């Protein structure tokens, strides 16, 4: 029996009741007013999904919100039942869905470990055997006999994670919870997950963090509107998914008018990121060629406009802010439509998410024609040998064992 999870033509239908009475009071009022019990709408969260996960595999589920990723996890963990199809699950399922769920504030940490273990289906003796490991992993020795209502949120999450990974599930479901605790604890969480993986635990992993998907998984399933659209190596799926989500991102950005301001005499109509071959991308690797392309429309004749961009890292660090004036690249006059490109032949940025702002101003920097504040984003994927900080300076090292001078 080499299969851990098998979905055979599984569909899940949710019935959404619009304005359904949630209380008897409402129900009576509705009946008196002669209204029925609201409108029903049928929503297929999954339609005819089939896949198989082998024992010991680590599989990621990627896809936009509402694609059915969490529905898959909930079906595997039996929180909801399928509408049609068959699901086979081999082994005990453990879930890292929401850490610390089920802790009772008035009970101590130790008592909550037993409670949480019991909720996850363990016998008292099994928990007893592991309790020291659980406490040690969470680094809670000092506070374990204090009611958890006195815990900080970090302690809460640490204890929750510790219980969840120590119940030795054969199948572990992880839903976007790795971003917990401080950096050191996060690293230990990942180490622990690696260890579980090495021990042969099957892991199913939902994440919007494509870097984590590439790092942790051997396979990725891409769900879109309840269907599996791709099922292959994480590299291939992430690449395809990132390209696809680019278009969706751009459309989303255009709607965020609140982040735009300016007189509107020149408007930036579209901003795109291109690789060395002119293909649209919103993820790059360190060292690749990177081009920001701005399509503009000048509604009247403008002399000597200045186009600029700014790049911020996701934590707000302002990385750079080049413009055509700094580069002494003078555009004499514009009228109607046109394109301005800013190209970096070797992108020195390291792994992370970056936001791009674009602007058109007049030569004296007194009039802002159009300004898009951090409306666009791209990602630098990991893979560069350098790991710390913001950029690689591409410096060179040299060594000599002779005394200088």
């Amino acid at each position, binding site marked *: 029996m080499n299969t851990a999870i098998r979905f055979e033509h599984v569909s899940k239908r949710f019935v959404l009741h619009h304005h359904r009475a949630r209380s008897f009071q409402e129900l009576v009022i509705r009946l008196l007013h002669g209204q029925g019990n609201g409108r029903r709408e049928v929503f297929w969260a999954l339609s005819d999904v089939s896949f198989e996960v082998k024992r010991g595999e680590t599989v990621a589920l990627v896809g936009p919100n509402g694609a059915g990723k969490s529905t898959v996890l909930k079906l595997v963990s039996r*929180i909801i039942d399928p509408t049609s199809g068959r*699901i086979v699950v081999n082994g005990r399922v453990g*879930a890292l869905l929401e850490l610390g769920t089920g802790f009772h504030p*008035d009970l101590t940490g130790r008592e909550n470990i037993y409670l949480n273990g019991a909720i996850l289906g363990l016998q008292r003796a099994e928990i007893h055997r592991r309790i020291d490991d659980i406490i040690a992993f969470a680094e809670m020795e000092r506070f374990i006999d204090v009611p958890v209502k006195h815990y900080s949120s970090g302690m809460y999450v640490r204890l929750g994670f510790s219980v969840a990974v120590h119940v030795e599930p054969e199948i572990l479901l992880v839903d976007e919870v790795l971003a917990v605790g401080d950096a050191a604890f996060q690293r230990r969480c990942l180490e622990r997950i690696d260890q579980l993986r090495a021990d042969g635990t099957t892991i199913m992993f939902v994440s919007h963090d494509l870097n984590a998907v590439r790092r942790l998984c051997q396979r990725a399933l891409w769900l879109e509107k309840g269907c599996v659209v791709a099922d292959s190596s994480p590299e291939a799926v992430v690449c395809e998914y990132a390209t696809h989500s680019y278009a969706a991102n751009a459309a989303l950005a255009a709607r965020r008018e609140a982040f735009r301001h300016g007189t509107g005499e020149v408007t930036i109509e579209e901003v795109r990121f291109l690789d060395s071959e002119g293909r649209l991308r919103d993820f790059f690797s360190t060292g690749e060629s990177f081009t920001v392309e701005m399509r503009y429309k000048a509604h009247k004749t403008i002399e000597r406009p200045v186009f600029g961009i700014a790049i911020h890292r996701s934590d707000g660090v302002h990385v750079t802010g080049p413009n055509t004036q700094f580069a002494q690249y003078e555009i004499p006059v514009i009228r109607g439509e046109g394109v301005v490109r800013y190209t970096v032949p070797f992108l020195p940025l390291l792994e992370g998410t970056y936001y791009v702002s674009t602007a058109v101003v007049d030569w004296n920097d007194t009039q802002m024609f159009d300004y898009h504040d951090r409306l666009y984003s791209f990602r630098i994927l990991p893979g560069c040998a350098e790991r710390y900080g913001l950029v690689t300076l591409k410096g060179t090292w040299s060594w000599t064992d002779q005394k200088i001078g």
Partner: protein
Amino acid sequence: MTLIERKGSQTIIVADAELSVTQKPFHIVRATLSYLAELWCYRELLFTLVVRDLKVRYRNSVLGVLWSLGNPLLMMAVFTLVFTVMTPSNIEKFPIFVLCGLLPWNFFSASVIGSIRSIVDNAPLIRKVYFPREVLPLSVVLSNMVNFLIALSVLFAFILAFQMPITPWALLLPVVILVQVLFTCGIALILATVNVFYRDTQVIMEVAMLAWFFLTPIFYPIDILPRNYHLGEITIDVWRWMYMLNPMASLIATYRVILYGNGFGGAPPALDFFSRTTLTALGVLVLGILVFFRYKRLFGEEV
């Protein structure tokens, strides 16, 4: 209903739509067996939840166990004051009389009110983790039962203090408690389910429980109910109807007979009524199980 089958560590979930009519009965039997096996696996959870309830209850009050006894004793004192001093009712050893009704009632009432909320209050858990959902209402009933047993020991102390004999009929007590537990579990399962879909069930039931309290012979003997009440042309035997329609009346009357008698020690209970109540309790329990199982698969989506 979705078929869930477990073979060792393998779980097979088959949607209802996949089963043909001829397969169904066969599958239902297998599913029930594997369900019972699963419930056995989660017995630890039931036990842990009961212990949790009791710990939380007693830890948060300075007086601990005494507090859960304080409430019925205070009520007893008030009723005794009202019915022996303010409007004398000539009931022998009134404190014992009223405690025999009050303690089982408190057990029932606290179980019902607590279990109604049990599913909804644990919504975060239900949305995130699978476990047999029925352990939530059942643990409320069981922890209140433990509480009731502690309170009963006080009742026995009172009986001795009033120099009343404890007769062998008191040995029937476990049977009566068992019937009450079955009945309460049935009610708890039904109301906990209803509350998931209609959230004001708990509010309505708080009022209903108060009405039910007065309609149950707790601080008055069931024998004061008229046997021939004339409502226009119709003659109603209120006493009989009370026994028939209100299982709590019959249960409390039975507790009272075997522990209190008429103030001179326990006497044999009216077995015909009690066996009918047992059947009613089993019926309510079966109904509760059916309702709960019909709807519990929606809890993950609705809470």
